[in-house]
């Protein structure tokens, strides 16, 4: 297996606060890598560093290198980078447009005009997100009419419609009920065949269920990174042990 993303000695600062400390982490291609850790440990910050979404904060500063397919992400135009590295957010954030237009949005941004191409890609994305059956007969209704779980899958469809290489997911199920959560989890498992997925989750059990690799962050440090099997049955670090067994804080 190959590394899709590599963080080399990554430190992140907001103003004078160092949020991440020398993170070294290789993210395997076509696998799910989960990032777990207590609140405020820097999971989201790390994730948003990968598609340079943190650049929007004026006081953000990065040290170290992040490579996407061996190419430094700071050598790539951020807009192109974000097309290659899709993102799914904590709360479903469909745009206030029709279901179809939501999925087509990214395609149109890329300048694709041809109706048929767009239609094909929208259908493919919705199918891959396991949503086609549920929405194919109402593609023109407003995306807000969907349930929370469907909205989140729509957001996933929107992200994969532009054929990204990597999907970043920041607690994608934390706003969903258990039934919708398990649908999204199944979807993540299905998607990993084609995409490299980085999943930040508060829910340790979710990391356990869906990921192949797990990274445990604590106070901005990467404490342990291993296969999920190992992290949950036999972690090496005492702190990981304490965290996964819930004996923390």
């Amino acid at each position, binding site marked *: 297996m190959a590394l899709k993303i590599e963080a080399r000695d990554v430190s992140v600062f907001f103003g004078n606060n160092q949020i991440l400390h020398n993170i070294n982490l290789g993210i395997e291609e076509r696998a799910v890598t989960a990032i777990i850790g207590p609140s405020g440990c820097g999971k989201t910050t790390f994730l948003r560093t990968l598609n340079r979404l943190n650049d929007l904060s004026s006081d953000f500063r990065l040290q170290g290198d992040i490579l996407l397919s061996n190419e430094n992400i700071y050598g790539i135009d951020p807009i192109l980078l974000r097309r290659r590295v899709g993102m799914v957010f904590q709360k479903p954030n469909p745009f206030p447009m029709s279901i179809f237009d939501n999925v087509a949005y990214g395609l149109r941004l890329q300048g694709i005009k041809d109706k048929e191409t767009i239609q094909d890609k929208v259908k493919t994305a919705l199918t891959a997100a396991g949503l086609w059956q549920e929405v194919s007969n109402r593609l023109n209704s407003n995306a807000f009419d969907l349930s929370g779980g469907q909205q989140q899958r729509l957001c996933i469809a929107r992200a994969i419609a532009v054929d990204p290489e990597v999907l970043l997911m920041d607690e994608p199920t934390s706003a969903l009920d258990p039934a919708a959560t398990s649908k999204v989890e*199944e979807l993540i498992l299905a998607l990993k065949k084609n995409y490299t997925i980085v999943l930040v989750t508060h829910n340790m059990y979710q990391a*356990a*269920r869906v990921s192949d690799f797990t990274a445990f962050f604590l106070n901005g440090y990467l404490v342990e990174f291993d296969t*999920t099997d190992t992290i*949950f049955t036999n972690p090496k670090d005492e702190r990981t042990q304490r965290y996964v067994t819930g004996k923390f804080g």
Partner: protein
Amino acid sequence: MLNEKISEISSLLSEMGGLVEDDIVRCVRTLVEKDPSEADSVINELEPRINALEKQIDEECLITLARYQPVAHDLRRIVAVLKIDKDLERMGDHCENIARRAKEIIKEPLLKPLIDIPRMAETAQEITRQALDSFFKEDTQLARECIDKDILVDELQEQIIRELISYVLADPSTMNKALDLIFTSKDLERISDLATNIGEETFFLVEGSDIRHLGPKDQKE
């Protein structure tokens, strides 16, 4: 996810069960057909594979518990599997014992024609198969049947021991050979006993109640 894991574990367990059944047949076949190669394959092939499977199943169960946090029926199934694979592994050990001993036994002519021991082995194998079947099919009826069959094996064993003692009394020099066969029958009795444990796990799985130490086993032994 959990379902896949469980069926993966089930198929591993079923594979292990198949190997153990095979094991029982072949270790006794060494005796019947006087073929040391059977014993060798028990010792060198089957036994390591069974051991490896036990480890693998335990590992998978552990991972499944850790990653999918099963409850209720799913959980009972995993716990039952953890118990069953241990039974199967010990059955494999007994088979290995039989095989090693058989290699010694067949170096010399047999004391008497082997009839009861193959019958014991057959019954033990049948109990094993039925017990596993009952577990996979969650069929307590079948489980009860196979547990009840254990009495047959016990009776056969007693018969064998009685008979062999009479041989030894008649000719003390057969002592060593007789002892080997007695040990063999004892191993087979253990195998069948362990197999009934599997049947008991079926009850545990299906009814959530623990019938261990309540069944016919307690009344005899």
